């Protein structure tokens, strides 16, 4: 009798472990952003840099000219920003802000906006994938050519596209 009770206790324990494992797997597979987030943190840790996630309240779309000429890259870049936000922002003294977004395939895309003076209003300039989407090449390019350093966007930023607030 005693050993039967012991066996059922062991059986219950095994079932509980399996149930907990199944619940854990269901939770982790149900959060697709978890891996991307972990990857971003891993990148930050390995590179020794601080990455700041930023995404405004607006959903963006490409400007008219971008759609007309090479829509796909513009759509992909804006879509990347809309889904993932900017993981790194670089700006210069002229009010040029580069919102860098990492796409699902690892490619880095750039949404470029220009600040109107010291206001919270920014004009959408461009959205594309410069320098083959390679982060180190893009950073080198922005630092040396655009004279950019790490920047930050105001939380209440308003982005204007072709003169219109989306």
């Amino acid at each position: 009798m005693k050993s039967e009770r012991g066996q059922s206790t062991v059986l219950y324990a095994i079932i509980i472990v399996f149930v907990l494992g199944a619940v854990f797997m269901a939770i982790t597979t149900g959060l697709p952003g978890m891996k991307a987030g972990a990857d971003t943190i891993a990148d930050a840790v390995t590179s020794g840099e601080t990455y700041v996630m930023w995404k405004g309240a607006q959903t963006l779309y490409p400007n008219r000219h971008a759609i007309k000429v090479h829509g796909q890259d513009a759509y992909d870049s804006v879509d990347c920003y809309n889904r993932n936000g900017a993981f790194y922002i670089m700006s210069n003294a002229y009010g040029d802000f580069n919102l860098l977004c990492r796409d699902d395939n690892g490619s880095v895309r750039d949404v470029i906006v220009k600040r109107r003076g010291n206001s919270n209003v920014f004009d959408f300039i461009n959205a594309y994938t410069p320098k083959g989407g390679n982060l180190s090449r893009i950073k080198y390019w922005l630092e040396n050519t655009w004279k950019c350093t790490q920047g930050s966007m105001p939380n209440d930023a308003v982005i204007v596209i072709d003169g219109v607030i989306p």
Partner: protein
Amino acid sequence: MATVTPTIESVLSVLLMELVRGELTDETIAAVDRINADDAPEPLKEVIRFMHGMTTVPYLRYSVTSMLIRILGGELAEMADFRDQNAPPIEYPPLED
């Protein structure tokens, strides 16, 4: 690298002249729209890629032209660095008294 055809060459010549003058026209933007960036010489590829995606609203023309000048300058500086790093040894002529 692909051969630069006369048409591309003429469009890019006008583009370069307009950039150094700081006055980019709608006609040149439209002409550049028809060029594949991969067909252009290396220092101009990024300039063309940027132009294909940039806004063309008139009130931002001055700003985007400045950005293009900056990109062109950076690409040319990179080209100069590459040339210096891969330069053949200079064969100096003998010094004359």
